[in-house]
């Protein structure tokens, strides 16, 4: 089989274990390669991409998999960043700081989710935005956390004699943490729990009538997403050296949604591809023109109009149309 119209939801969460294991050396070689030959700006670029990937994957657990659009995920990202910011001067172990970032992000998400998830999709989107903006406003005016400047000059403490201030080491450290976080999300996505989330996305009433407590699953997905966003925020504070109110602003919430749509929200790896393209595009364009946001928006519009399910969606459709046909043709000729 494999002709058009036949399309498995499994493309959204790749499950072919032998293939994934066989492909594993590629990302490992990439991380080592960048660490060995990358210059400072390349290292900074890829470290930023990695930290963006983790944030985007956490948002897409809600958006792409559970069908929940939150405009306030910056809140948990920012809470994670501030957690690291406040602890950094106390020479706390970096791994402990990241664990705490994740914990504070998750706890905040549990509190806010328990309130906002009792509403409809639209009210949920608005309430998450409102909570996010409220938190932004508080940090902006709170001098104890640096006010509008935020906490600057964050330098991670050494990790058992390893200096994380070194760009090369910070890149490897970030890549490892992001890989662990991404692997965790991948495991969850391919599990029965992940299936239940996609059931809710497709038809919440049907899921409920099959015995799925929809509210609890949504809340749990929200907490998981908040915890991973907190972890990503903690990494952001390490990489950028700051925890600023900007990291809590609503535009920070919008970025991972745009990234997911760009890469393909229905695909587990959509946000990964989206992050690379988005960070590269903002980097290049912002050096070329002050109107870079306009060009980003235009590019995004073109991609979504050409392929509503993102770049991976377009590639997948092309594969169904031409790739499988070529494969079938090859088989027929071989016979």
């Amino acid at each position, binding site marked *: *089989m494999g002709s058009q*119209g*036949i*399309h*498995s*939801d*499994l493309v959204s969460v790749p*499950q072919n274990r032998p293939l994934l294991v066989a492909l594993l050396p590629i990302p490992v070689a990439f991380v080592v390669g960048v660490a060995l030959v990358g210059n400072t700006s390349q290292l900074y670029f890829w470290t930023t991409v990695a930290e963006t990937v983790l944030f985007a994957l956490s948002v897409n657990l809600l958006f792409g998999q559970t069908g929940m659009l939150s405009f306030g995920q910056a809140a948990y990202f920012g809470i994670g960043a501030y957690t690291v910011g406040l602890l950094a001067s106390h020479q706390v172990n970096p791994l402990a700081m990241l664990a705490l970032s994740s914990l504070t992000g998750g706890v905040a998400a549990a509190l806010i989710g328990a309130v906002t998830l009792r509403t409809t999709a639209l009210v949920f989107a608005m309430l998450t935005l409102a909570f996010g903006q409220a938190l932004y406003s508080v940090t902006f005016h709170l001098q104890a956390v640096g006010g509008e400047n935020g906490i600057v000059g964050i330098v991670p403490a050494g990790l058992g004699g390893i200096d994380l201030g070194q760009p090369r080491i910070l890149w490897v450290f970030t890549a490892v943490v992001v890989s662990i976080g991404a692997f965790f999300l991948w*495991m*969850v996505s*391919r*599990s*029965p*729990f*992940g*299936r*239940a989330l*996609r*059931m809710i996305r*497709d*038809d919440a*009433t*049907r*899921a*409920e*009538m*099959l*015995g*799925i*407590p*929809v509210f609890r*699953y949504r809340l749990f997905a929200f907490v998981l997403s908040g915890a991973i966003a907190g972890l990503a925020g903690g990494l952001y504070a390490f990489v950028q050296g700051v925890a600023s109110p900007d990291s809590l602003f609503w535009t920070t919430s919008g970025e991972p949604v745009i990234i997911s749509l760009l890469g393909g929200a*229905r695909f587990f790896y959509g946000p990964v591809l989206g992050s690379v393209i988005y960070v590269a595009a903002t980097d290049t364009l912002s050096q070329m023109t002050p109107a870079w946001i306009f060009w980003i928006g235009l590019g995004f519009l073109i991609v979504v109009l050409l392929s509503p399910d993102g770049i991976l969606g377009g590639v997948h459709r092309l594969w169904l149309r031409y790739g499988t046909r070529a494969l079938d043709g090859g088989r027929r000729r071989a016979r």
Partner: protein
Amino acid sequence: MSDLGEGQPLLVTENVTKRFGGFLALDRVSLVVPRGRISALIGPNGAGKSTLFGIIAGSVQPSAGRIVFDGEDVTRVPGWRRARMGMSRAFQVARFFPSFTVAENLRSAVLAERGRSWQFFRSERQGDVEREVEQRLEESGLARLQDVRAEHLAQGDRKRLELVMAMALHPQLLLLDEPTAGMSPSETVATTDLIRSLCAVGDCTVLLTEHDMAVVFDLAEVVTVLNYGQIIACGSPDQISRDPRVVEAYLGEAMVT
């Protein structure tokens, strides 16, 4: 009714009333669903059948009255828990997971039934689950469509998929809202056979609504007639087809067509 009362009925609705604003959709409906039988609920469009189904399944709250399932008052029990207790429902317009393939839809139901849906780190592909999915696909004749996205299915296959998913919960009570709506004559026969075979093997109780009177009189052992939110008659298919009030309210037109 008395000849069917073998022990405690599986489901009882006690004076269930539902108001939508000023409109009285259900007026003190007391319905008894005997265990191990196929019961039918019939009545003209707008009689309140789907509302009553929603109230029984837990997706609609009644304005007054009680729902007793298997001896337990479930009026305030959420729908998902009623499903876990053994109620399973198919909708008038089939509901399933449109972006999943047929096999994935069925897998979703089997995973939920087996209480696996809180597993985080195991793959969803589990030997025993896959075997049950395969077996149910074979039995229902959906095997050839297993890799098709459910949203691309034809009307009859949609209803059938939903029915097979509902059955995968091993329900005590199967609620079927017009199970043969939109089906061709041959699909209708296949579906009634499927429902009957289900009740022959297990001790499953079925409550269905249906506009096709041939299906009702073929399958049901008890028929309840609803009109303007009130029960106007209840009895065996034979009694119902001769009841003058039923013929006047509903069957007259239905029998002719």
